[in-house]
């Protein structure tokens, strides 16, 4: 059985990584609004992902004031792909139940990350 990445196998951090995989880049405020979490909670999860080199941050001053933008690094993107493949392998083959079937269909779309 595959071991799931402990850093990504946490609901909020999974969502964070998935959102950034789709959006490319987002500010702290956008992530907070999207995930509906407190500043402190989001900050602590971001710090963990940055420490593991899954996320990178940059300062943007194009809007007239400095904002911090976060994006997935190559390592983070690869880790998310590996994590998704590990999850897919956990799904039972030929499960007729609709939720699992829908998850399998969706997992096919997730290959494109």
């Amino acid at each position: 059985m595959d071991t799931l990445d402990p850093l990504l196998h946490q609901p909020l951090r999974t969502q964070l990584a998935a959102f950034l995989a789709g959006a490319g880049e987002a500010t702290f405020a956008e992530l907070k609004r999207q995930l509906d979490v407190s500043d402190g909670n989001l900050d602590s999860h971001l710090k963990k992902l940055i420490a593991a080199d899954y996320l990178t941050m940059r300062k943007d001053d194009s809007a007239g004031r400095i904002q911090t933008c976060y994006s997935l690094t190559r390592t983070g993107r690869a880790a998310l792909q590996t994590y998704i493949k590990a999850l897919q392998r956990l799904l039972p083959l030929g499960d007729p139940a609709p939720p699992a079937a829908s998850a399998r269909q969706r997992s096919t779309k997730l290959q494109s990350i």
Partner: protein
Amino acid sequence: MPQLATQQLDSIHSMLSAGHRNLRVERHSLVLWGLSCGGLILASSHILTEEQLPGLEQRAFAWLIMLALAVSGVATLDWHLTRQVKQARDEIWSFIHKQVLKVLWLLMSVGVLLTFAAFFFGGSYLIYPEWVVLVGLGLYVHGLFSEELLEWGGALVIAIGIGMAALRLNYTLLQWVAASTLGLGLPLLSLMLDRGRERAPRVRLLQSAIWLLCVLAPPVLAHRFIAASAPPDAPVVSLEKFTRQPSLQQVVSLPAGTSIPVRFDVSGNVFRTGDAVFPLVLNEPVELMMKDGKPTGDWRKTGGDWLLWQDTLRVQIPWIRADLTAQDGAQIRSSLVVEARHPESDE
């Protein structure tokens, strides 16, 4: 464990979709573009007209300058307002948002150039449908990266634009439908935005039907009301009596066989300049409403309903070519199609 994996995959899928569609169209953008485009379309028959600017080139360049100023003015205002909103929300302009905005500006520029080109290459009938389709394309492209509702809205606007031309609506109705689609439809769409929520197709279909009804009903009903209102009664006189004694309001009857000259103002450097007259002969009797010695635009076949000629007469010149044969010598041949269509058959 499989259930946990399913939940995690669903969560990833949902967040990935949210990330892919993380653009937001601002309500003010739809209101600004909609009102300015709709207003310009309504005003287009009253500003920079042939009476105000008789020269074709002069008029074409005046329209080019006015449209370029209007489009760039709205684009600049929209950009400033959007920047303010983004600053207030601590958001940045994402790369995709900048590209989508460029596509919208490009489409608007294409609209300006097509309008300018119509002065020289014809096709003015298609100007309103073109603008509607271009704005619809802009909405649709934005919707691909933002809200599903915008994608639906864009597709509907494109469909209206294509439908306007395909159904060959008369020019007045064409103008009103275009103005309503953009001037009324876009602000209405801004009120319907649901911040990217996923809805069942039947909900989207219902929203689309309501939006279409609100957008199409006012111009169609207004046009029907105006078309149904007959001009006041007036005495019917012959062309001879009218030329001898024109009065305040009268109906001039032109019998079948009446010769109606078409006067060409010939210019350029190939033929002698001046007037060339080409006679057309009426196929059936018609009556024209006159007021203060000038036609009001109302006409009817004898005994028929009153119609507006800008709504019912279509003139087409499908081809024109020069020829030289031993029998006929040099000549220019052309085809002229003049058709009267009842407005009810258009709608």
